[in-house]
């Protein structure tokens, strides 16, 4: 490509000496043109390389060492993984994170779609609803934590209301019972995520041709039939995307459990999740960075496996 450019330029030149002088300049230009795309990509790539690729490789290296934050440590083979599989809190964390995926993902996929179907349209009232549903997304984790701990506390608003209405005699242990904490956190996750995924669905719904709904109406289809037969197939690829995103987010849940338990992972640490375990092992002056890195690798493998399984099911159902 550079040779062709050079030859074409020489053919136009009437001064052979000038052409000779121009040669290094043109050569430099052609090199620059070849390099240009790489130079454009370079800044972004550098950031990704340093903060993602190098960090990931370093995590991989650390996973096979007994490093702490302040002491580099030495290579110990698979010992960290052996220790993890003998750690009772690992199994608790794995169970909690998996339960989170099983319970939260279906709601994250279906509820925002229903919500998006209800609030689509250009009227002001729909705009108000869209904004209301999206508001939790922009709240900080601290604010969310304060709101929900005040609501769910044994002397909080919900328990006080239920007690005041004589519906319960003892406060519901939203924040003191292992399973209640987990389900409360799941509820908060769904509450937080609804608006976010709703916006994604709204974009997908905008691409469905309105004439399909009109035709269905003429054929006598009701709202449920339209939703199942037009809306759902119309946003199929978005459903897959949201399923993947919410699976990753649910398995890596951290903020909700952290704020509802003041970072203690509940009574006896029974509400610990994989991300909380990584945080607890990997931070502080005596952080076990090697152990935390091994945990991170396990999370990576599990999330990767979940996504592959989803992809397999997806492609089978498409076939």
């Amino acid at each position, binding site marked *: *490509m550079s040779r062709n*450019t050079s030859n074409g*330029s020489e053919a136009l030149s009437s001064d052979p000496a000038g052409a000779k002088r*121009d040669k290094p*300049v*043109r050569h430099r*230009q052609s090199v620059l*043109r070849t390099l240009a795309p790489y130079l454009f990509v370079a800044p972004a790539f550098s950031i990704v390389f340093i903060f993602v690729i190098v960090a990931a490789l370093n995590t991989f290296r650390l996973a096979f060492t007994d490093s*702490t*934050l*302040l*002491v580099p440590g030495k290579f110990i083979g698979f010992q960290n993984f052996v220790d993890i599989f003998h750690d009772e809190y690992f199994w608790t964390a794995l169970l909690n994170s998996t339960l989170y995926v099983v319970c939260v993902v279906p709601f994250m996929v279906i509820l925002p779609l229903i919500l998006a179907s209800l609030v689509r349209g250009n009227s002001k009232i729909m705009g108000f609803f869209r904004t209301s549903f999206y508001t939790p997304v922009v709240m900080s984790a601290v604010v969310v934590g304060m709101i929900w701990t005040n609501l769910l*506390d*044994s*002397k909080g608003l919900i328990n006080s209301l239920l007690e005041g209405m004589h519906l319960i005699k003892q406060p519901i*242990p939203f*924040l*003191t*019972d292992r399973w209640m904490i987990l389900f409360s956190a799941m509820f908060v996750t769904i509450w937080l995520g609804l608006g976010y995924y709703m916006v994604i669905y709204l974009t997908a719904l905008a691409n469905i041709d309105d004439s399909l709904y009109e035709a269905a109406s003429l054929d006598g289809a009701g709202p449920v039939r339209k939703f199942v037969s037009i809306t759902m197939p119309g946003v199929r690829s978005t459903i897959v995307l949201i399923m993947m995103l919410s699976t990753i987010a649910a398995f890596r849940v951290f903020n909700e459990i952290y704020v509802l*338990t*003041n970072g*203690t*992972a*509940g*009574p*006896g*640490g*029974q509400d610990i999740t994989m991300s909380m375990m990584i945080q607890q092992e990997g*931070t*502080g*002056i*005596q*952080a*076990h960075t090697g152990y935390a890195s091994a945990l991170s690798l396990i999370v990576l493998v599990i999330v990767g496996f979940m996504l592959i399984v989803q992809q397999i099911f997806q492609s089978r159902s498409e076939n």
Partner: protein
Amino acid sequence: MLPPMPEEVQKKGNQMFSLKKTVAAAGAAVMLLSVGACGGQGDKNADGKTEISFQTWNLKNDKYTPYFKELIAAYEKANPNVTIKWMDQPSDNYEEKLSSQAAAKELPDIVDAGPSLQYGLAKAGALMNITKEDPGAKDQFYPNAWKAVTFSGKGMQTASYGFPWYVNDGPNYYNTQLMQKCGLDPNKLPVTWDDYFSQAQTMVNSGCGAYMSTMMAADAGDYASAGVDFMNKDQTEYTFNTPKAVAFLQKFVDLFKAKGIPAEALDASWSQQGDFFQRGSIIAMGGSAYSAADFKKNSPDLYSHLTVGPKISDLGKSATVGYEMLSVSAATKHKDEALKFVKFVTNKKNQLEFAKKSSTFPSSKGGLEDPYYAKIDEGDLQGKALKITLKAVENGFSSRPAQFTDAAGSKYLQQQVALALQGKQTAKQALDKAVDFANGKLNK
């Protein structure tokens, strides 16, 4: 394909390129210089004076800033070739701040922290061995204070890795109105653990709907105050799973079942304990001498119903004395100047002045004999609290080994105790597991 550039444009481009080069080089130089300014802690400053960085936590405020400004000004006046750079960090995430500073090898010359945080730094070799560098320093402090800053552990020399600074403990605060409601006599406050459990039972039987406190044998101080040896004498093994310790924990398990301890205590933080006390849900709460002033300011109604008593102990003395310490970074470039300043901050005169301001106590020898402490006015709650704390500090000790950090057993003990209280395991299983875990960490 792009057409070739005309020569003029090319020339202009070359000029621009050189201009760009110049700007880029200047930018790089500025960046490098600013990086240089970020680092180099403890270097000489622009005046050619030696700069010592001094980091405290949660002390830069209206109450304490004037003290530190005066302290630093007095030192700089007496040492004109030294300047002190005082930095204060917020209490939230102080451990994370210290660990990131240590990991980046940017620990300030002098660091303020409690023994459990300092232990992690000392074990990683980030702190100066004071026993080695200043063997005479020991004589400046009370023996219990020096013991609290002396660390031992696998891979480290048994030595002091800092200077003791202010000392604190505190009384138990009691809500007298709630005590009366629950059938208890506010003039007979519990002193021993038997008193405590007996009064808790009376409270439960009264059906007053309150809880005794959030205490649940989840801390080294609880076991030590019940006469349990938390570690063996040479500090090579944890021993808090003896039959005596199991029987002690079992009493809390029974009290929890009888609804004498709130379920929230199972993972309660300090702030929650305060909330429970202020809303009148619990009868007793541990605090510091300065907590009285906080109650007076924030809960005046509650303040009028408060009284104070010593911390519960079967030993006749407190097992929960807390020592703050100042350590010197092992990487300091100005060892002598840093040591001199730390000794200045922790000398008897300066410690006394700070202790009076903060309702804490000095660790330097002779400090507690100051006439100020003999004249404490016990007419109000704060005076009473201060007097009880003085006794605790004079006779008491710190029972929590520095190596029993959150990561090395403290948090795990709390979790296992919570599971025992919930009936998910026995008291013995909880303590056996906690001891095994802590011993495992001790030997790493």
